[in-house]
């Protein structure tokens, strides 16, 4: 049960974002720009970073939701699963491996990102903007994971819930639905 009263039909992050909409607005804008805005990283690659960080923070809600989004964007489920298990052997580019390694260090503590880790990414062709975005996506998902778990929001167990959520994240993005979420009430 959540630590504070949240709308029952809005488990996970959505109930929290609806609970305090004035703080939710910039969080949503930031996420939309970072994960869906112009970037030399694909949307699928950016969702892989979000998923890896959520997985390492053991946030079940965020991990399952962003896995669903990554799988949809990549048109297959193997890559995301492999990234979670061991990104060094996953079927992603050497540049992505280096960026995922940076994200994994950020998840522990920003200070853990070494010059060697950054040099590796640069050597594999990563730009300053890609390194910046990787660090900010990883940091932002530490916010999300801690927000969701710190207030004990509900984690649905029905896989169909995440299929629908993944579709919403991919097809609509991270901005608030124009009409709100009342239509999700049973």
């Amino acid at each position, binding site marked *: 049960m959540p*630590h*504070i009263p949240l709308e029952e039909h809005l488990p996970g992050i959505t109930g929290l974002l609806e609970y305090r909409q004035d703080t939710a607005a910039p969080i949503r804008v930031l996420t939309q720009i970072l994960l869906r805005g112009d970037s030399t990283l694909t949307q699928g690659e950016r969702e892989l970073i979000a998923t890896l960080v959520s997985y390492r*923070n053991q946030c079940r809600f965020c991990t399952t939701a962003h896995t669903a989004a990554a799988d949809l964007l990549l048109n297959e489920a193997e890559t995301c699963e492999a990234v979670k298990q061991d990104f060094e052997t996953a079927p992603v580019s050497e540049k992505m491996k280096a960026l995922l390694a940076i994200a994994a260090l950020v998840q522990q503590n920003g*200070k853990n990102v070494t010059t060697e880790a*950054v040099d590796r990414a640069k050597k594999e062709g990563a730009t300053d903007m890609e390194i910046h975005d990787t660090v900010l996506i990883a*940091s*932002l998902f530490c*916010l999300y994971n*801690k927000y969701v778990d*710190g207030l004990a929001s509900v984690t649905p167990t029905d896989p169909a819930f995440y299929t629908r959520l993944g579709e919403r994240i991919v097809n609509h993005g991270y901005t608030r639905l124009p009409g709100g979420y009342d239509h999700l009430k049973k």
Partner: protein
Amino acid sequence: MPHISLPEGVPGIRSLVLFRPDTGQPLYELAQILLRGESPLSPAERELIATYVSFLNACVFCSCSHAAAARYLYKDEQQTVDLVLEDYQNAPISDKLKSLLTIAGRVQKDARTVSTDDVALARSFGATDRDIHDTVLIAATFCMFNRYVDGLATIAPAKDDISAYAQMGERMGTIGYVMPKPVSASV
């Protein structure tokens, strides 16, 4: 030295939001609403939570600058800030704030460890839903800011550069969180 090419001579978060202003804008908006907007917690109390979390994450720039902002806002009781960082359970703050700092500390370490007992204790000292929500969101937000600032190895004045941080604290305590102006420098 920063891991990427940032505007020279600009410290911490300011260099990052100048590097990418379109993501910087919502980051500053979030800080302003969360730390200065409407809340049952005073801006000084909220800066204290931000400072405590940044201190636990060992982020020099964030902990020193928010400590300075908290000192500025605590005015005559500015020693409170250092007493909290030393040992908040024995600092001259309310039991409610102590119980909220406990929750903030759990969020910093592993948010899944915030227990029903932690929340019940805070409620027994008068904490409302919003106090608890805002504490968790401030703690989570500073886990983001700390990682962003340290993950890209931004520059920061030395911990003991009291006057540099006092200047930042005064700015944060008066005008709040406003995007820095672009520097007309070399980069």
